């Protein structure tokens, strides 16, 4: 039974690329073009992993992540955040999430990957996150 991966991104090009890549490597993909849709597909299709774009209209990736991690029945699903924001542009998202404080219960994704996405790197991260 192939693992089911939900791709949430507002860019059809990104969706086409990622779905092609993952399917080529034996995964099943479902897609959503915004955060609201992404939450709905998560509930209806029960994916094994979610690839979540950070910047989207309507409902941002952060907002969706927050919703996912606060929902008891969904928070076990691992999330990999796909983002263009990186150390190069001045803001490291990874460090943002790692910055711990006492009582800090912010939702955290299980992994990060930066755009432009390198196929090898993504596949390794997906494999690792799924525990394969």
């Amino acid at each position, binding site marked *: 039974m192939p693992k089911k991966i939900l791709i949430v991104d507002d860019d059809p090009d990104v969706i086409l*690329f990622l779905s*092609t890549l993952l399917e080529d490597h034996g995964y099943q993909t479902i897609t959503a073009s915004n955060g609201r849709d992404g939450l709905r597909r998560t509930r209806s299709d029960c994916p094994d992993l979610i690839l979540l774009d950070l*910047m989207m209209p309507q409902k941002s990736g952060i907002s969706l992540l927050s919703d996912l991690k606060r929902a008891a029945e969904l928070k076990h699903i691992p999330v990999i955040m796909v983002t263009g924001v990186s150390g190069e542009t001045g803001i490291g998202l990874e460090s943002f999430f790692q910055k711990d404080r006492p009582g800090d219960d912010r939702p955290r994704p299980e992994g990060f990957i930066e755009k*432009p996405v390198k196929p090898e790197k993504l596949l390794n991260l997906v494999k690792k996150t799924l525990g394969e």
Partner: protein
Amino acid sequence: LKVHQEMTSDNQRLDENPMKRLRVAVIGGGPECLAIMDMVSGEIFQQGGISLVGIADANLASEAVRRARTMNIFTTRDYRELLRIRDLDLIIEVTGDPEITQDVERLKPTRVKLVDHPFARLFWELARDFGEKKAETWIKEAVERLELDLERSQEGYQDISIKKKLEESRKIYSERLEGEIQKRTEELWASEREIRRQKKTAEGILSGSPIPMMVIDRNHKIIYWNRACEKLTGYRSDEMIGTDRQWEPFYVERGPVLADLVIENDTEAIERNYRNMNIRKSSLVEGAYEAEHFFPHLGAGGIHLYTNVAPIKDDLGMIQGAIVTYQDFSERVKLTQESKRREAFVQNLVQNSIDGIIATERTGKIIIFNRGAAGILGYSPEEAIGRMRYQGILSEEMARTIREAFYGTKYGPPGKIINMEAELLSKAKEPIPVRLSGTLLFEEGDEVGSVVFIQDLREIHRLQAEKEQALRMAAIGRAVAGLAHYIKNILTGLKGGAYVIRSAVAKGDLPLVQKGWDMVERNIDQVGNIVTDMLIYSKDREPRYELVNPNELVMDVLTLMEDRAKLAGVTLVHELQADLSKVAMDRTAIHRCLLNLVSNAIDACTLEGIINGKGIVTVKTDRADGWGIRFQVVDNGTGMDDDIQRKLFTDFFSTKGYKGTGLGLPVTQKIVQEHGGKVDVRSQPGEGSTFSLFLR
């Protein structure tokens, strides 16, 4: 009797000639003495045997003394010396000083007769009034009788008949003389009473006068010091009169005051001593002077005095004293200084103002033209002031507009102009844009001129343009970060497309090849777009105008966007007004604007289109008031709140995540502004937006 010319000189031993003549000496060298000298040197007296043998005068420089010397007559300063003249018969006292008369009376030997002042005067007047002939007879008789007296006194009175005769003639003479004396004396008293009365009146007037005044006589003694003078100097008249302390209230050291010099008629000393006191000759009184000077010892903290000194002359023109009047003009000086200071302050303010300041008289003549105005208009203040009229710096039309602004209420209340934009003409005849404020000037209700303040708008315009450019550059700088993100997206798209094509080729999936190829093409197009947008936005450019049919342009754009709209589930609609004439515009640039607006509208409707299939974008054309054409792009998409609307054109602001560069609307607005048009937005969150684009 034979006339004998005496040989005398100042220090000679006195005359010893034994011949019997009337030998006369005179005390006082005044005008009376001169008159006596005239008579004595006349024929009658020489025949009559009168010799003038001596003159005494305190002033050895007097005219009578000088003349006496040329006639070899003995002169002395001390009248007692006269008594030492041998065989002196008669002393005539003409100074009028009763003390001298008494002194001579006491000292003289009995043979010497004394004619005192009133008698001498009478004698003199008789001579004058009765004419030469009569005087001759009189004098002869008098002389004969006197001679007889003298002879008799020496020989003894033997001949009774002679004595009788003599007594008779003397009686006749003395009766006539007495009659005359009585008459003359009464006249004299009357005139003296009149003089005294006049003197009292004059003194009363002077004393009560508010003008400080003092009089000194020719001996430099104060003879008058009025109440106002007491008040001015703080010195009482009873301590000053009779003294020569006139310098004391005014100076630290004793020295001649102006009045002293006027009495001596010492013009050289006057010029020398008073050069620094604004000395000048009076234009009203001959021989009088006026001076202006500050006396630090007077009053509290000194007084500026105007001094007028006039000589007092007798009827023969001799200086007998001087009258001095003072005028305190400290208050005036203070006011003048204050107003000078104030004027200097205002001048300074006017001259150093950065604004141009120009004032004109009612006739239009320029009377103030400061350095600021010179800097703006190119005329120097010297060229403009008094030589130019406002017509020289205003076109006829602008002059009329400004006049209307002054009298109307469009730029502030009547008589004022507040912040009006105007154009002045520079020296080089260039129009200079200025901001002008001003006011009409009134004096007692009459308009006397105007003053205007001008600011050079060239500089302000230049700075504004520079600031806009700087803001754009700063925005571009900020945008670079955003653009890096965007370009990364494009790269992702290109790499993704390449991967999809490779995968599709490997699988032999031809439709997937097509999808991958489209992806690559779209991303290449985006690179072209963003480069063009950046170039448009960062550079000033002139539109390349051509006549364009607006409706055809709209149809072009809609055709291009058709596929994308379909993909997003959005319907494109057009409502174009028929028969629109062609409009001058840069076709490529406006095409880009419409493409931006329609593309934005589709994006705004995308969600609606995908979910409900009800996304609609409508493009309209019509002719709005005063405009050549209006394009409207209406969507029923998400709409925008006020905050987003404010940021639309100002920055590279995007709501589209990594899909937007934020350049679309700023570029659109810049192009439209370069056309002299405008972009207008109306939007409500949840109800959609309308972008209107107006061109002339």
